[in-house]
């Protein structure tokens, strides 16, 4: 087996070296979904065209995502004269300039440079920035670095070594290493992965199944997609190790159909791995067989729950089932089934390669290893961040992600998506790990983290999440089905200024009932956003109910815009053109007023009003807006 692997590694290295041996520059473009959304395809085209025009022979390689969404499209250029250089916001225009100035004339254009990928004496390195240096990458180690469509690149970087090691060990030994590493399921619940494998291995059965859960439905989290798109082989390797350890012969990757690129990448990776003998029959010449297929999830949030996911593969409505029996005892088609998250399985190769002690040395006692967060919302450098467990929220939000932009102040951070909670400033020194977050009232969930500044209304955020869970409730449990609907109705009323005394008490009581009366995680955690925001931001709820005022000026029924006539410039029409509903009229002295009846409160006029006038004012409650009458018929109209 090891000889076979050594041959494959040698071939892969030769293949990669041969590609890199010529001195031609290589241009790596991040072409995962987020890169493409930022225009990476256009950038690639511009590079191709410019290279042709200037007659430069350079190779373009499409890689995955580095996780630095704020700087997309990201491009790394490797030349013989410089260390690999990373450029940010590479628009087609910049691409053309880079080809001419850098590749042709040799000027590395520092103004577009994010940093060099390696430390050196010439140029600042990316490792000088906390956004890079404070991260610790285990799962995303190779994301954005290797070509996801080439198994050779993964092999040349030491890929599938963990599988080889696993196959040389007894099955129980593999499980023991994973158990001792303290790796916990990254899907949200944080169950000990080794324990789960042990349970599955202990069930006597001819056939067993391993399912990789990539049904990432949490709005605001996209790390699973990134891993699938950027380094699918690492996941497959972890899945194969798991299958070997528990004695499974069938693997299924359950991916959301809404992630077409991820589906394509994982399918391709499966085909490649099978062709080289890392999957299929007699893997690497041993007696271990594993067949892996892809199942497309059809978009139901509840299918992230393992029993619902299994129902959906069986062709039924994705409704959670009673546990026990747990899937490890009786899962897909009644077979013992291990369901693990993408990040869990992707961490397995590193655990095996470097050992349980190494993995345990990262993170905290109860939560070992690293966690991936998608930090989005009001932060300077949003994107995917992989940090050791136990890092504080303050470090993550302020040091790594650059803090709140536009000189606004921090208000809250929402962690764990619809099942998580909103934490205020006093929790910023909470370490992020499974247990501390639950203690604070939030949860790890899938790792979605939305940072909110002073302009966010907590009642509105709670309403948003309840609307989501209400929509996604499968309808099996009465409290989840009807209770969330009532929660939503009450929150709806409050945000519209129709809240009444006693609403908050009903919200609390109903939340507890939903939590106690639901079968699965969706229902049990659905009230979390309401409960935490009620606990930490009760004054905001009260302002909505008793003063009919939204302190953040976010809820549209409770706000109004008006134009300050003192500041408005005579004859300026900037706001008139931008208003989508023609609510802005010209007053008799050629200034502007807003027709409150027509205004939809989109805020476009605030943006359009030139900063030197800054005449549009937003107020809450709406009665604070002075009434400006439109000119009567016959009077002059500009």
């Amino acid at each position, binding site marked *: 087996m090891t000889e076979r692997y050594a041959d494959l590694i040698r071939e892969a290295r030769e293949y990669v070296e041969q590609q890199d041996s010529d001195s031609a520059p290589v241009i790596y473009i991040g072409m995962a979904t987020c890169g493409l959304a930022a225009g990476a395809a256009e950038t690639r085209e511009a590079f191709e065209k410019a290279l042709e025009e200037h007659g430069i022979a350079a190779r373009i390689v499409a890689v995955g995502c580095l996780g630095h969404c704020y700087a997309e499209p990201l491009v790394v250029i490797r030349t013989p004269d410089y260390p690999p250089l990373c450029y940010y916001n590479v628009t087609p225009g910049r691409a053309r300039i880079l080809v001419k100035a850098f590749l042709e004339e040799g000027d590395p254009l520092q103004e577009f440079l994010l940093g060099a990928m390696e430390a050196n004496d010439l140029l600042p390195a990316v490792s000088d920035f906390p956004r890079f240096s404070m991260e610790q990458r285990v799962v995303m180690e190779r994301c954005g670095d290797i070509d996801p469509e080439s198994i050779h690149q993964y092999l040349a970087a030491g890929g599938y070594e963990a599988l080889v090691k696993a196959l040389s060990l007894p099955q129980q030994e593999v499980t023991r290493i994973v158990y001792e590493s303290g790796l916990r399921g990254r899907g949200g619940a944080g169950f000990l992965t080794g324990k789960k494998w042990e349970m599955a291995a202990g069930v006597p059965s001819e056939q067993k199944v391993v399912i990789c859960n990539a049904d990432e439905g949490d709005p605001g989290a996209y790390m699973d997609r990134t891993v699938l798109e950027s380094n699918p082989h690492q996941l497959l390797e972890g899945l194969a190790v798991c299958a070997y350890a528990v004695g499974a012969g069938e693997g299924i990757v359950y991916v959301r159909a809404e992630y077409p690129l991820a589906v394509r990448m994982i399918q391709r990776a499966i085909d490649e791995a099978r062709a080289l003998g890392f999957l299929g029959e007699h893997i690497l010449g041993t007696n271990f067989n594993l067949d892996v297929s892809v199942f497309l999830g059809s978009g139901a949030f509840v299918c992230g729950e393992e029993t619902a996911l299994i129902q959906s593969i069986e062709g039924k409505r*994705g409704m959670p089932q009673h546990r026990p029996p747990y899937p490890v005892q009786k899962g897909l088609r009644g077979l013992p089934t291990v369901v693990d998250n993408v990040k869990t399985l992707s961490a397995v190769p590193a655990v095996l390669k470097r050992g349980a002690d190494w993995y345990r040395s990262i993170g905290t006692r109860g939560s070992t290893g690293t966690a991936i967060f998608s930090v989005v919302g009001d932060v300077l450098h949003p994107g995917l961040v992989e940090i050791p467990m136990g890092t504080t929220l303050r470090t993550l939000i302020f040091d790594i992600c650059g803090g709140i932009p536009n000189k606004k102040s921090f208000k809250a951070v929402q962690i764990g998506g619809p099942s998580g909670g909103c934490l205020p400033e006093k929790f910023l020194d909470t370490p992020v790990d499974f247990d501390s977050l639950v203690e604070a009232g939030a949860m790890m969930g899938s790792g979605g983290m939305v940072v909110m500044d002073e302009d966010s209304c907590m009642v509105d955020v709670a309403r948003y999440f309840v609307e989501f869970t209400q929509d996604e409730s499968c309808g099996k449990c009465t409290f989840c089905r009807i209770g969330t609907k009532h929660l939503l109705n009450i929150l709806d009323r409050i945000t519209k200024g129709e809240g009444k005394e006693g609403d908050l008490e009903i919200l609390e009581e109903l939340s507890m009932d939903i939590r106690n009366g639901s079968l699965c995680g969706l229902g049990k955690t659905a009230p979390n956003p309401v409960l935490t925001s009620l606990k930490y931001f009760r004054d905001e709820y009260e302002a909505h109910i008793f003063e009919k005022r939204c302190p953040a000026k976010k809820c549209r029924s409770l706000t109004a815009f008006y134009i300050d006539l003192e500041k408005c410039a005579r004859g300026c029409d900037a706001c008139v053109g*931008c208003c989508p509903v023609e609510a802005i009229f010209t007053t008799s002295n050629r200034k502007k007023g807003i027709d409150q009846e027509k205004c939809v409160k989109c805020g476009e006029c605030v943006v359009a009003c030139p900063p030197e006038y800054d005449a549009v004012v937003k107020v809450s409650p709406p009665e604070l807006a002075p009434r400006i009458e439109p000119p009567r018929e016959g009077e002059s109209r500009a």
Partner: protein
Amino acid sequence: MVLEGPAAEEAAMFEDVVDLLSTRSKERSELIPILQSIQRKHSYLAPDVMRLVAEHLDISSGEVYGVASFYNQFRFNPPGKHQIKMCLGTACHVRGGDIILENFERKLGIKEGETTEDREFSLEKVACVGCCALAPVALVDEKVEGHMQPSKVEGLIMGFQIERERQERESKAGEGNELASND
């Protein structure tokens, strides 16, 4: 009788699904993959087609509809030529995605989940396309439009209208030329 418009389309879909089903096994677990392949090709599931699938798998058509309507992916009405999907994930919501959705609704004169009468546009909301750093985001015919603003909504729709008018002009001019050359 020659069928026209939607009826012809559904008849064609029916024929095609008969062919597709002949290649598929009758396992219950095939249900979702079958529905997915039908929708991939025809972009929606017509009632007759679901009855066909039910017969094939030997389950009630109610059960097929029950499964199909459970999942967000499946649609039961033909979509517009241009599909607009407004992301209402958390980051997009915080950044005012609902205001953008309202602008689309107003501009197109339809509500979320509907298709314009001329079947040019359909509008839906989706929960997170995973481009949160670009919020608010809209998917317009599979292309991600980041940092949406109400004015951008107008620009996008106007772009499609200009393109459509240009095509109409060209096809008219083309017909004219043909006529001329026939003379």
